[in-house]
């Protein structure tokens, strides 16, 4: 195409080929870091003219940013509560795309000698949880409450465990970090957080199925964003390929 002097301007305006468009902004819960990192690559392979910008943080933080008018196209939360908080900004209906379970983790060196859940209530244990406003923080407290009702655990189990709390983190990855560094004696995180890399630095203490909490992850297209591209991204997440990625990263199907 012979554009001459205005060539530069024309190219900048998209004349003669694909001009790069604004990146697709995806707000996703911190626990989705690895899984969505991979799904992003799948999406970008299928849509070569688009890039994805992932904003990863505690769902409560993302919901607050959205409520304050942040620009985003997709929101994937780790619980229904924070999706509900921004319901008015969603185009269509949120879709549940994954589930998760909780596990307790301790540093590989296990300084407090925790081998079963009862040990979490030992006085002096350094327990780190996410803050109650964070999905995994609320789920953790929920699970502790359920364990207290289990006949195998004392009735004041939840209270005694929470007395051992030494820090409330703002997202699940911060809890992971404190345990991984050996500063915390124990933490409660998602099953999906125990990646192959992390498994080298921590030991897992399972939470029985009966008392465990199912975390439901909804994803939604945001009305104020690029809804067409957003729907394409959600389609990738809910596709068999997307589900395979999520399964590989420790998530359960919805």
């Amino acid at each position, binding site marked *: 195409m012979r554009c001459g002097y205005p060539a530069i301007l024309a190219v900048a305006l998209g004349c003669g080929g694909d001009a790069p468009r604004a990146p697709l902004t995806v707000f996703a819960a911190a626990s989705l870091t690895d899984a969505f990192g991979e799904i992003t690559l799948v999406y970008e392979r299928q849509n070569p003219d688009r890039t994805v910008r992932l904003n990863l943080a*505690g769902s*409560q*933080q993302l919901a*607050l940013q959205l409520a*304050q008018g942040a620009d985003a196209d997709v929101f994937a939360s780790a619980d229904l509560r924070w999706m509900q908080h921004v319901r008015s900004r969603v185009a269509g209906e949120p879709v549940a795309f994954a589930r998760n379970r909780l596990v307790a983790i301790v*540093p590989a*060196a296990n*300084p407090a000698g925790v081998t079963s859940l009862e040990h979490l209530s030992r006085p002096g244990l*350094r327990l*780190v949880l996410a*803050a109650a*406003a*964070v999905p995994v923080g609320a789920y953790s407290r929920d699970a502790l409450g359920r364990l207290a009702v289990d006949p195998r655990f004392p009735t004041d189990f939840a209270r005694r465990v929470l007395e051992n*709390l*030494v*820090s*409330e*983190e*703002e997202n699940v990855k911060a809890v992971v970090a*404190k345990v991984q*560094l*050996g*500063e915390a004696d124990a933490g409660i995180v998602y099953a999906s957080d125990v990646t192959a890399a992390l498994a080298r630095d921590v030991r897992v203490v399972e939470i029985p199925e009966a008392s465990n909490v199912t975390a439901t992850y909804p994803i939604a297209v945001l009305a104020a964003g690029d809804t067409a591209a957003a729907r394409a991204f959600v389609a990738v997440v809910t596709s068999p390929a997307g589900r395979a990625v999520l399964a590989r990263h420790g998530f359960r199907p919805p």
Partner: protein
Amino acid sequence: MRLLLAAAIAVATALLFALLALPVAALFLHTSPRELIRQLGEPVVLEALRLSLVTSTGATLVVVVLGLPAAYLLATRSFPGKRMVDALVNLPMVLPPTVAGLALLLAFGRAGLLGGALEVLGVRLPFTTLGVVVAQAFMAAPFFVAPCRAGIAAVEPRYLDMAKTLRGGEGYTFFRVVLPLSLPSLLAGAAMAWARALGEFGATITFAGNLAGRTQTMPLAVYVRLQTDLDAAVALSVVLVAVAFALLLGLQLAPVMPFWKRADAGR
């Protein structure tokens, strides 16, 4: 031409003032006296405020006690490796706070370099109030040492010579000449260090953690509230800004205090 220069300076100053004042004003305008009083009545908020004041004052004391001799050394002597020490003392100023927090964990954490030694001594830093003081002192140190050193270095050599002819001892010279003359810089440095310690967040939350009553200082309390209750966060921010501003203003007014005039009389 002079008018143009004056206008340019006026515009620049006005723009800077606007940049700094508007966000602060926006904070104050978003909240109401009723919301402020309600927040101040919450025990969690009072805890955070008390913790902030105690830890920042403690951190400033640590920084002054350790920093004044260091600043004197840097200002009056040369020694091998001085440039390294210089750079190191200024490092926390440019280090991202979270990075500093991580570094503190790796040094003084239970699994850190000095972890074993500290455990033996019975000293625990992560997840404790003492850890908050350490994190704040780490980040605030350069804000005191730099102006303090500059103030000491600025003392005119002839005053030092005069002091030497009177008594001669370095101690005498320091306490009777250097200290009074560099006091304004010292106090300005202490104020900046105190303000930096008060506002410290990243290193605190990473190294000392976040627990109400033990490590949740005001900035952490604001951050936590921000996730669920914006109005409460704004009210807390206003309290923090007001307290910080009051102390900085207080130190600005110090020159009119009697002890200042006496020190100044030496000039």
